[in-house]
Every structure is written in C-alpha cells, then in structure tokens.
C-alpha cells in the first residue's frame, strides 16, 4: 500500500476571520504566521493561503539547493534551513502562497503541520480548520484484510458497503456477525449456495430477534471462556428502529455485552425503499409517495441514538462516513465497551439509489448532512453524558443539504421550514443534554442480586467481576 497523508482542511463557510489561527501559528513558530486568512469576495467570507503539502511540490522542484523535499512518511514538505540559500525561487514555484518570506528573518517559512499536532487547528474556535487523519487510517488499515469478499452486489456508490468493509477491517476476524434482513445480507454478505460472502462467522437472524440472538451468543462465549470475541450486528434502521426494536431495547436494558451497529439509510431500501421509523419528514419513499395529495412522509423521524442513550447503554455514538477519523475512534470505543455492556453505534448512511443521490456525491451528502446539523455527531457514556464530537455551531442551513438529495426535490418552503425547525429543536435539546453541567450521577451499585444495565456501573473492576461471574 502506498502512503497516504493527514491534512489540514479549511472550510471557508465556517471561518469568521478571527485570526486566532495566525496568532497561534506565529507564537508556535516564533515568527510570521505560516498560514494567512485573507478577506474574501464579500463581507464575512474568508480565504486561506497555506502550504498544501503537494504531491508534486513545485517549490521543491525549482529549489536549486535541495533544501525542500517531501517527507515520505508524513507527507510534509520539509525545509532544511542549512541547505537553503534564501534565493526565494520556491515562492515562484508555489501557486498557493504556501511558502513566503518571513520579514522578521528575511527567510522563507512554511507550514510543517507541527509534527501532526497543528497549533492553528487547535486554536480555531469555529471548526473552519480541521486536521483530517484519514491518511493515517488508510496507512494503518489499508493493508489489512477485507473481511467481505469482492463482488458484493451493492448498488454503485453504496455507502453501507463502505461501512461494512471499514468496520470489519477494523474489528478483525475475532468476531461473530449478525446481519438481519436488509441491504447488508441482501448484497450477498451472508452468501449464496452454501458459500458465505463474509470471512467471519456470519448469520442471518430475523428482523425481530437480532439483539436477542446476539445476547445468547455472548452468553455462550462467556460460558466457554472466550472473552475476546466481538459479538456484533450490522443491522439496518428498519430492523433496529421498527420491527427489531424490542429486542434491541431489551438487550440494552439487560446490559448484554454486544456491539450493535445500526446502518441508517432512512428506510427499507433493500425491499424497494419503503419508509421506516427513521425516515425523515418530507422524504419521498415508495410508501410515502409524492403526488397531488401526498408530499412525502408526514411524520418526523425518531431519534434512535437518543433513545438508546436513554437506555444508559455502556456506549452510544453517532457517526458518518464523511468523518472517517471520528468513525474509527468511535469504533474503537464501541468495541471496548461491548465487552462491558451494550454498545450502540448509529452510522448515518446516505443511499444513492433510494435517496436519489448521484453515487459520486454520497460522501459529500454525508458531510453536508453533518455540516447542516441534519445529523449530529456525538457520543454518550453514563460517566460523561452526551458530548459532541463535532461542534454543531455555525451550521449551514439545512436547505444546503436537502437540495442535493433527490428524495427531497418536491419540498415546499413550508416543509423545508418544518425540517429546519426540527433540526434546530433537536440540536437545542442535545445541547442542553451535552451542556457543561456535570453528567447525571451514575446509579449507585445496586444491592447484590438485583439487576441493572451494565452501563450504570461506576466501577469497572466490579463490572469485570460480574462478567466473569456470568
């Protein structure tokens, strides 16, 4: 596998021009700032000049002294102060303003990404600057075994397939996987003709009993002393929020030690795009058609991850493939939590076929859904309460998101206003729940013999004892 690199990303729409990044850079580097925010075409629009750490760096190509070179490990274009003769030709090579004269020392200065911990990003109060670590993820996991066979029959651009392959690549072979009816088994992961499409033990429960079956499997492994198996589901939103909900809720309430991943494509896409409990208001589906009288779904979606947080699961989080580093971190925490209690990961997954999104725009849809607060990225543990992993402040209007999704094409202004109001309400509620006030006190350890969700425990050691007792 070739190397990929982490990058500093800039979202101009979030930048308010405060200049904190430049101050932070300047003080970290004890000189002129190596990035510059400049006023844009209109008021409140800002632009950025920064080194892009190019793959074919022209600054290095025109350097007569060999002072500039791309580091094969980090991807950073490094500057060798001893070799540099201060001829400034590099500034003629760069079309980004990424390497410029620091007037204080009369030498060039350029971004070195602060050894992977950029000061500018840390200082950015709006999230306009982000340090994107997808490169590290690729380097770490790109060479690992893909635990699904090639040739699964997902639709072109299927985001759920992306989620499956990333998830299992990360979790590895020590796992037992349930894939209840939906796109995930539908595209062939449970196999055909006696052959499986998955390289770990996989089974196909009913829509209604996924979590119950996993609970039993976990008990079995506990009994035979295998504490290292990840017992998990890759389920759709229908099998989780609707007909499978009682089993999910029950397993969460019992604190069964399983990892339940809900791949939420907002409907029963595998069977022809019927509406589900997580289908958002206004969506076109085959059962909420758009015509003279009906204009898509008339009810709001239920917020399943919030419902699961109310179960006081050991871990609850939402994630999106538009934010891979966030997804990978949450997978780590969810897997760990699944050995101690119920771990629930809700991954939003735009469906190119069912949502009428061009397959090339799926990841963009992921990002826009988050940037507009249509979905929010957060995590919950009983100890910390709800915590946003991406700030919901400075969001784009939800119209920016829905306009790229075909299933909302018919929306009237009233409907759009309703969606915006629901989004605002949801975020406001989450903000209250995530406020700086201390998390609600965890339940005291109950008297011996009584039962409480494992997530309510305060002491991990006592919990481990409980696990071993099982």
């Amino acid at each position, binding site marked *: 596998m070739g190397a990929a690199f982490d990058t500093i990303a800039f979202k101009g729409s979030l930048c308010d021009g405060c200049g904190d990044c430049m101050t932070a850079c300047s003080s970290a580097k004890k000189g002129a700032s190596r990035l510059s925010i400049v006023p844009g075409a209109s008021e409140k629009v800002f632009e*950025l000049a920064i080194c892009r750490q190019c793959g074919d760096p022209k600054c290095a190509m025109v350097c007569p002294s060999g002072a500039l070179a791309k580091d094969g490990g980090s991807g950073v274009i490094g500057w060798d102060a001893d070799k540099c003769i201060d001829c*400034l030709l590099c*500034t*003629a*090579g760069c*079309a*980004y*303003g990424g390497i410029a004269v620091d007037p204080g020392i009369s030498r060039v200065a350029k971004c070195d990404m602060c050894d992977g911990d950029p000061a500018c990003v840390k200082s950015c109060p709006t999230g306009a600057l982000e340090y994107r670590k997808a490169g590290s993820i690729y380097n770490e996991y790109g060479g690992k075994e893909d635990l699904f066979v090639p040739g699964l029959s997902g639709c072109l651009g299927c985001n759920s397939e992306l989620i499956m392959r990333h998830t299992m690549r990360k979790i590895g072979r020590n796992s037992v996987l349930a894939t209840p009816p939906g796109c995930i088994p539908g595209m062939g992961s449970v196999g055909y003709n006696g052959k499986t499409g998955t390289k770990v033990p996989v089974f196909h429960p009913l829509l209604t009993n996924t979590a119950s079956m996993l609970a039993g499997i976990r008990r079995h492994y506990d009994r035979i002393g295998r504490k290292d198996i990840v017992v998990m589901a890759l389920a759709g939103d229908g099998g989780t929020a609707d007909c499978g909900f009682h089993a999910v809720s029950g397993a969460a309430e019992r604190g069964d030690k399983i990892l339940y991943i809900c791949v939420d494509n907002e409907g029963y896409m595998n069977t022809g795009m019927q509406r589900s409990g997580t289908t958002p208001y206004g969506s076109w589906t085959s059962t909420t058609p758009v015509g003279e009288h009906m204009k898509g779904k008339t009810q709001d979606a239920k917020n399943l991850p919030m419902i699961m947080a109310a179960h006081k699961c050991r871990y609850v989080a939402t994630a999106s493939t538009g934010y891979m580093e966030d997804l990978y971190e949450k997978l780590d925490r969810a897997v760990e939590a699944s050995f101690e209690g119920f771990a629930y990961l809700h991954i939003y997954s735009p469906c190119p076929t069912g949502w009428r999104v061009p397959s090339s725009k799926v990841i963009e849809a992921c990002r826009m859904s988050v940037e507009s607060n249509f979905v929010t990225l957060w995590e919950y543990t009983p100890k910390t309460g709800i915590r946003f992993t991406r700030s919901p402040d400075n969001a784009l209007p939800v119209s920016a998101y829905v306009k790229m999704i075909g299933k909302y094409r018919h929306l009237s202004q009233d409907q759009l206003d309703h969606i915006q109001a629901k989004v605002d309400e949801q975020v406001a509620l989450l903000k209250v729940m995530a406020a700086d006030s201390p998390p609600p006190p965890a339940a005291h350890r109950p008297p011996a013999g009584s039962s409480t969700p494992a997530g309510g425990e305060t002491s991990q050691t006592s919990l481990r004892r409980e696990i071993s007792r099982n």
Partner: protein
Amino acid sequence: MPEAKYLLVGSSHAALEALRSIRHFDPDGSMAMLTRDVYRPYSPTILPYVVSGRSKPAAVMLRDEAFFEANNCAFVPEAVAQSLDAKARTVRLENGESWRYERLLIATGAAPAIPPVKGIDDVRFHVLRSLEDATGLRSAMGSSRHAVVLGAGLVGLHAAENMAEAGLKVSVVEMQGHVLPGYFDAKASERIEAAFTGHGVKLYLNHKVVAVEPRDGGHSCAVHLEDGKVLQADLLLVATGVRPVTDWLNGSGIAVDKGVLVDEAMRTNVEGVWAAGDVAQAVDFHTGQPALIGIIPTAVEQGRIAGQGMADDPYVKAYPGGIPVNTYRFFGRVALSIGQAAASGDVEVSEHDDGGYRRVVLSDNRLVGYASVDEPFDVGIMGELIRRKVDLTAVKDAFIARPVETGRRLMSEQWR
C-alpha cells in the same frame, strides 16, 4: 554499444524533472543520464553561494546515488556529447563511446557567452557556470584585490556582491543603462544600484569594453572602456550572458535558432528527440514567439512536459509559454519580478514607492507583470494570475492597494 530507451543528455533541472515524469508513467523503461560534469546533478543557480562560501561544494548535489538506483537510471558523469546521429539514433561522446537511444532528451543547458572583445583570448578570466568555475573563482578571490566584472546580470551582480563582501575592490561594466536589464524597471534597478554603490562597488553603466590586455606577465589585466577609461583587474569575471550548448548538434538535422527549437510538447523537428531547459528555445508566453528563457521554473516545466511526451503519458499538457521570473537577493535585501515587469507604453502601470517599491503592470485589467524591491510578494500566485489571465476588473482597487492579500484571496478562490 550501451543503449537506453530514454537517454537524457544533461543533468540539471530539466533533465531531472524529465526523469521524474518518465518514471511516473513508465517505471521500467531503461534510462540513462549523461552529463559533461564530474559531479552528480547540481544547479547553476547555487554557484554564487559556493563562491561566497555559504554552500559547501560537497553539499550542493540535488540527488544522491540511491536516487538513481531507486529510479533505475544509469548516471554517467564525464560524458561529453560530441555529435548526434538522429538516423541511427546514437549520441557519440568525446571519449569515443556511443549511446543508442529510442527517445532522446537534449538538456545540455547553456554555457557562458564570451563577448568578442579584443584581446580576451590573451588574458586569464573567470566565468561562473560550473562547480569548478565556482571553486576556482572562490580561491582566486582570496588572492586578488581588484576585480572587474563584465555584465550586470544575475551572475555578475551575485559575484560582484560576493567579492565586495570579501573585501575586494569591485567594478562592474554593463552596456545597458541599468543593472538586471529586462527584469526590472529603472526605479527598481536604481535601488539595487544604490545598494551596490553603497557597498563600494563601482558600476560602469552604459559602458562598453573595447579591449583587454594582460599586465604583470599575465597575473592581472587592463580593461579598456570605450570612453577611454582603463580599469585594472587582477581578477576578471566575464558574466555577459549564456548561450545554449548546441554545437554538438551541428549536422544532426535538429533545427537550431538561438537554441534548439521545440514545439508546445517540447519536441524538436526530429522524430524521437525532445529538448528542454536552457538549451531549448520554446514559446514565450507574452509574445507567442520562440525565445530563450533560461530560468529554473521554465526548465522544470519543460522537463516535465518533455518527459511525459517521451513516456507517451496521455495526460501531457501543452506548454503554455515561458514567463520570466527573477527572485534576487542583494546584501540581504529582496528584489522580485515576474512577467512583463519592466514594460511601459501600451500597459497600465501602478507604482508604489514608500519604504518598499512595487510596480504592478496590467493590460486589459489583467496582470501581466509585477516587480518589487524590499517588499516581498507571492511570486507564484502572481505568476498564476498572469498565466490564467485572471480578469481583475472587479477587484482592481483592492489589488493595486493590497496586492499580496488580494492575490492570495483570488488564488484561494480559484482553487476551490
């Protein structure tokens, strides 16, 4: 007979970039790089810094042996090309060896142009184009007191500065009325000239050398100027420009004007032969006519295009034309220019002379040139605005008032 699918004659920026772009597309095709030099590749631009002592001769090499091994390219030093047989596809070297090629890159660069001054063959003089020249000049500096530099171009001025800083009495003779002609307008040049004068360098602008003659049994010489002045020199540096190294192409059928004529894909008129860098005469962005623009950025761009063409890379793009660029340091100060920075007449010029000096040249509300002294700017961004002919009508006031900030903004928008 040794042979290579890709034969690169020359080892500086153009050839190195061609190597890179060939390997980008064809990792396996056999390749060899021939150079007249004894050393691994280095840049002529580094030489003034070797003269000053800032760069150690051993530390100026742009590539190490491992690079050539990793890129599966035979590096052949001390290989002076003598002739080209384009029919037989062979390059004959001075040592009698011949190399057969499938595709050839002519990247032999340029050599100092020695003016036809009376007596020049009878005196000892220095030039500055190779590492030997640089180390030779450096050691001569140590035992000299009076230096005369012919030519106030980049090489001449760099060397004059080095020698003045080393304590020599330095005179520079230039036929034109200003230093760095072409790159800078009179006002910018005057700032540079004042710095040299202030550091004790005597500038003889608008002066022509008519003869030189040896003195002291050849240890020094007298430089006679047209107006009768005579300058004494125990160190004479000839820096009156360079000319492409094309003599080895005589009789090969390769079309040569001032340099090797190439099309927009850096192809010569002969099948299987490309040329790039200082040796090539490619189209000039401004005039659309073939011209010599011997600078690193054009060498790199031409080398890349040639390499892509040699490797049949379908993503090769036509050469947009060379734009002159000059980033010049003198006595710790900065002078920069790009494009038609000294143009006057049918263009709109905005000058700003307050602490720093800058000169912005617009034509039809598009940037065509930019020069500054003591006021650095993003040369690459301005070059891109020139190359893309970005319409500045809507931002003209801001651009003239705050060109760096506005340039950064415009390019940030362009890259979105």
